[in-house]
């Protein structure tokens, strides 16, 4: 769709990544020898106990934070290691947990910010492109509103469009729909599903919501409790585009049981670890 020709790029390779916060002081090991890969155009969903280091990994891929050891590659290029950290760029777009639309910019100004600041498009062109994107997802008419005038569901969609207009190789979303009610979430899932099916690109989606994980993901990566490692990878072989009635199908329920068991085990460990820390 709006995102144009797609090029099947965006393969992510995560190799033995370790992240230790404050190595000389408190020494929190957030991730230890974590390895997995995401194929180009794959919708990867990461689930795991709170505070297990999912966001740490996202920050490392995005270039916001460094890692202690290991390597992260994007399309074969080393983007993060102990000695090398490629700065954030438009190939790795992030949609943040608490939303990061610029409150002082209108919807239109937010969406065109990327192409204009990179000088990739003239303002006129960017406005046209943004208008078309908004129109395609049924969000026309809000161009001149400020983010705080919109519901959080609409804000999230605008933020996703602001990322997509840059045609990134990877879109990373950190619990983007947390705090939305069930109905709004359904709308968001369909929105994301449409966008992904129109033009598949690599997705790195963090969530706590297992239904969301299986519904959206082509694979669900379950992380262990801290220090984070891969506990299990569940491939979701449901046909695309998915619609909400798959949530009742047998294959879906089997997948959910599989994911749930793995998550439950880790949640229990995390809980016990918490108890130990308290004691």
């Amino acid at each position, binding site marked *: 769709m709006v995102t144009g020709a797609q090029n099947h790029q965006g393969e992510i390779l995560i190799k033995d990544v370790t992240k230790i916060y404050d190595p000389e002081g408190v020494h929190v090991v957030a991730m230890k020898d974590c390895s997995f890969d995401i194929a180009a155009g794959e919708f990867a969903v990461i689930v795991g106990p709170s505070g297990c280091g999912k966001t740490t990994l996202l920050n490392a891929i*995005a*270039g*916001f934070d460094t890692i202690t050891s290991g390597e992260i590659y994007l399309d074969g290029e080393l983007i993060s290691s102990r000695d090398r950290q490629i*700065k*954030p*760029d*438009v190939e*790795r*777009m*992030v949609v*943040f*947990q*608490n*939303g*990061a639309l*610029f*409150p*002082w*910019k*209108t919807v239109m100004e937010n969406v065109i*910010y*990327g192409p204009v*600041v*990179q000088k*990739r498009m003239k303002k006129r062109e960017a406005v046209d492109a943004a208008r078309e994107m908004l129109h395609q997802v049924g969000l026309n008419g809000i161009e001149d509103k*400020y983010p*705080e*005038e919109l519901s959080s569901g609409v804000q999230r969609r605008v933020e996703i469009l*602001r990322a997509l207009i*840059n045609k990134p190789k990877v879109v990373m979303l950190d619990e983007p729909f947390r705090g939305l009610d069930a109905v709004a979430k359904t709308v968001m899932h369909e929105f994301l599903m449409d966008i992904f099916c129109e033009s598949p690109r690599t997705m790195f989606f963090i969530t706590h919501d297992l239904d969301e994980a299986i519904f959206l993901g082509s694979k669900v990566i379950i992380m262990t409790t801290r220090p984070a490692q891969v506990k299990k990878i569940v491939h979701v072989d449901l046909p695309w585009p998915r619609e909400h009635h798959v949530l009742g199908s047998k294959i879906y329920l089997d997948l959910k049981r599989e994911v749930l068991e793995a998550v439950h085990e880790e949640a229990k460990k995390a809980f016990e670890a918490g108890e130990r820390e308290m004691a």
Partner: protein
Amino acid sequence: MEMIQELRLKREFKKVFNIRVIRGFLSIVMFVVLWQLVVFIKVPYLENLPYPKDVAAGAADAAGSRTYWFGWGISLVRIFVGFIMAQLIGIPLGLAMGISRTFKDFTFPVFEMLRPIPPIAWIPLAILFWPTRELSIYFLVFIGAFFIIVINVIQGVSNISVSLKWAASSLGARPKHIFWRILVPGSLPSIITGMTVGMGVTWNVLIAAEMIAGQGGLGRMTWEAYTNNNIPFIVVGMVSIGVAGYLCSTLVRWLGEKAMPWKKRF
């Protein structure tokens, strides 16, 4: 049609003359009546108070005199010179302290040492230090607004969520862009708060400075009314200072609304 028009008129009428406006008006009337009464029955210790009508006559006199309006002009110039200098120096300084840890480490301790000193306590030093009385008053007004704006800007910068900065850098913004398009607008609400509070303080400082050291200005005028034992004119001076301060605060608020259209619409 006519009926609708009539209803609309009624609604407009109700909007303007609603019960709260009427109560507000009554409170002022009651205050003046009480004042009249206090003077009339010669309440102990308040027997020197002028009648409301004497003050009104004083105000009418003042409004017709050039010296009175000259006083307004002098005070307003002093306020704006000092206030604007404080913003011109304080905002960049606050931004620098908010952005650079190193710069803050070098400057903040001294800043925090000087900040608790009430601006009025600077008066003697200011008079000695600056070659003219006028310059020392500008300086005092400056002090009144300076520390407040700096502390607010620092606060404003540190309140900007890190995800906004990260989002901007992912979107391709370079440090220069992040400064001008994220840090500056992001700290604008705090800048406006600092300006509003600072404007209030500058009037306090100005009046004290004028009474002690000034030539001309509303504060000096009020003080001279005291030395001439012209009580109605003292009250006129006080009210004028109040009105002037209110107008200046309104101006700052208006500027704030203009500068932050995203804050206004809801």
